[in-house]
């Protein structure tokens, strides 16, 4: 049989399709962790946070976060009687080494631990031009460092300031909700080392998670609800002055 041009074209197209299939490879064998059975978030109890900075140090030790950059940090708010709309906020070195006593204590002051809100509708993933940041099936916003270009769109897009460009890898970095821990059944490093239990990992799809009982009887709120990001870090006892 002689190869006509028609045969050649048909065969080449078929070969291309077959090659595509070969390159895709065999799907990995699944471990006993089923991502679709989880939906993670976090609960912050402002009334328990003592601003010790254990979470910040724990996160840096667990994830190798470079000095001067933070995947989680603690802010101190100082709200005077007339400055509810304009509070004073400080976070020396992310609160890593605690907070020096304020010279002029005016009104109330309190600590607010912050981290990626793992928004279900996150602006950072929407702006990524290459699909290097994404929502995992269990509700965690992750960065694929092998695929990130380092264009910084996501750093600008995050309304909570939770992202930064790692100076060594020059790829975007953020809280991964300790994905390497929670998929093994452990809690996050920050929750593990928090001495007062002010922060707790939450699995909304787990019917036995104490969050369900907590939410029935407590008023909680998320940061910047007007951004409509569907943030999943819930704050209990949060003052209206917190931005």
């Amino acid at each position: 049989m002689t190869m006509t041009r028609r045969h050649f074209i048909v065969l080449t197209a078929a070969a291309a399709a077959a090659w595509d299939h070969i390159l895709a490879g065999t799907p990995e064998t699944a471990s006993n962790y089923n991502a679709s059975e989880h939906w993670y978030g976090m609960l912050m109890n402002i009334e328990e946070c003592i601003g010790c900075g254990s979470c910040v140090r724990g996160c840096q030790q667990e994830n190798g976060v470079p000095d001067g950059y933070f995947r989680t940090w603690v802010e101190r708010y100082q709200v005077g009687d007339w400055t509810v709309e304009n509070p004073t906020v400080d976070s020396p070195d992310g609160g890593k080494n605690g907070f020096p006593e304020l010279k002029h204590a005016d009104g109330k002051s309190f600590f607010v631990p912050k981290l990626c809100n793992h928004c279900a509708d996150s602006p950072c993933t929407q702006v990524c031009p290459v699909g290097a940041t994404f929502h995992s099936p269990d509700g965690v916003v992750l960065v694929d460092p092998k695929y990130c270009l380092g264009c910084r769109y996501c750093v600008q897009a995050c309304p909570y300031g939770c992202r930064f460009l790692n100076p060594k890898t020059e790829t975007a970095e953020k809280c991964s909700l300790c994905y390497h821990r929670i998929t093994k059944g452990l809690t996050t490093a920050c929750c593990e080392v928090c001495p007062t239990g002010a922060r707790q990992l939450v699995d909304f799809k787990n019917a036995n998670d104490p969050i369900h009982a907590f939410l029935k009887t407590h008023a909680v709120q998320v940061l910047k609800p007007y951004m409509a990001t569907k943030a999943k870090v819930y704050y209990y006892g949060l003052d209206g002055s917190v931005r």
Partner: protein
Amino acid sequence: MSDLRNAGHLFRLAAVFAAMFIVFLLVRALLVPKGFGRYGHYRAEALAEIAAKPINYAGHQACENCHSDVVEVKSQGKHKGVKCESCHGPLARHVDDPASVQPAKLEATSLCPRCHTANAAKPKKFPQVAPEDHSGGVPCDTCHKPHTPAIETAEAKP
């Protein structure tokens, strides 16, 4: 039929388009990484790669498997909710190899004030002191046992 006699150039053009389409498919197959799009607009393998990172904090469950005596002591005191690695630091290496990797000795004078130094922003119910005024430089563990910090004096007992 006579109309098609001069239509050879159309077939040649179609062949060029078909060849370009095939080249597009081949280049796409080369450039799009493995697993991209399986779960969404991202590399599916990234999930497993991120999940495979090593842990540094073993988690209190791992500590409690061996140190049940400390768990027993700690459950009686005010520090019962404080997890081991909150003070002792990340010890996953120690769990992997308890004999050769030993946790560092802790220094109460620097460790305790991390939480218990007085600060106006701390919750009022949290026990806090000005370390210098409170002990005058005497290490905290002279009086307080770290695992059960309350000082048991004859008067304090009911």
